């Protein structure tokens, strides 16, 4: 069974530029999550989708971050404009059921903002 795919794996941009990350979850998984993980810390949930709908986006900085999940499958996370403090690993995960089930994580995208 293929795992969660993410691209790109690495991205370096300058502050105030825009960047987008892509995630393809495990086939059949209804719930998709985006996390931000700063070095030395645990993952911080940015947004949770169940199928096409947003379940929780309370920690998403909506003035600069946006995310969508088209047709309940793939998802993109965008940052516009980026700030230095956005440097982190962005993890995508999916689960078969709700947030009360085990999650399967992708390898992450390491973003460096200069």
């Amino acid at each position: 069974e293929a795992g969660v795919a993410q691209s790109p794996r690495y991205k370096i941009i300058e502050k105030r530029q825009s960047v987008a990350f892509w995630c393809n979850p495990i086939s059949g998984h209804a719930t998709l999550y985006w996390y931000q993980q700063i070095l030395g810390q645990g993952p911080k949930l940015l947004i949770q989708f169940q199928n096409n709908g947003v379940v929780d986006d309370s920690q998403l900085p909506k003035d600069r971050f946006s995310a969508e999940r088209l047709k309940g499958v793939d998802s993109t996370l965008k940052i516009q404009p980026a700030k230095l403090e956005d440097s982190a690993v962005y993890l995508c995960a999916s689960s078969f059921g709700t947030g009360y089930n085990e999650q399967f994580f992708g390898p992450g995208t390491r973003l460096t903002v200069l």
Partner: protein
Amino acid sequence: EDQVTQSPEALRLQEGESSSLNCSYTVSGLRGLFWYRQDPGKGPEFLFTLYSAGEEKEKERLKATLTKKESFLHITAPKPEDSATYLCAVAYGNNRLAFGKGNQVVVIP
């Protein structure tokens, strides 16, 4: 205030030296507590889910337990390949999720 606190932050063990990691939580309406393992440069890998106080799960040298306010991950006779960061996460309320900062474990041969 952190909702999930893990201790110790870092732990160095000799191979074969058993120890325990702690995850305490302050959320109400716990729906599940999860343990994940994360290796450098990789995404977290699922280990266990615990749903109610008194529940225990085991996998190889790892055993997870849950009380009303905390969980322990016991590592018995660890090997160098058990070196990783162990993350605790809680699902609570209406689809809320929170992770702790992790326990970084190094097992020395």
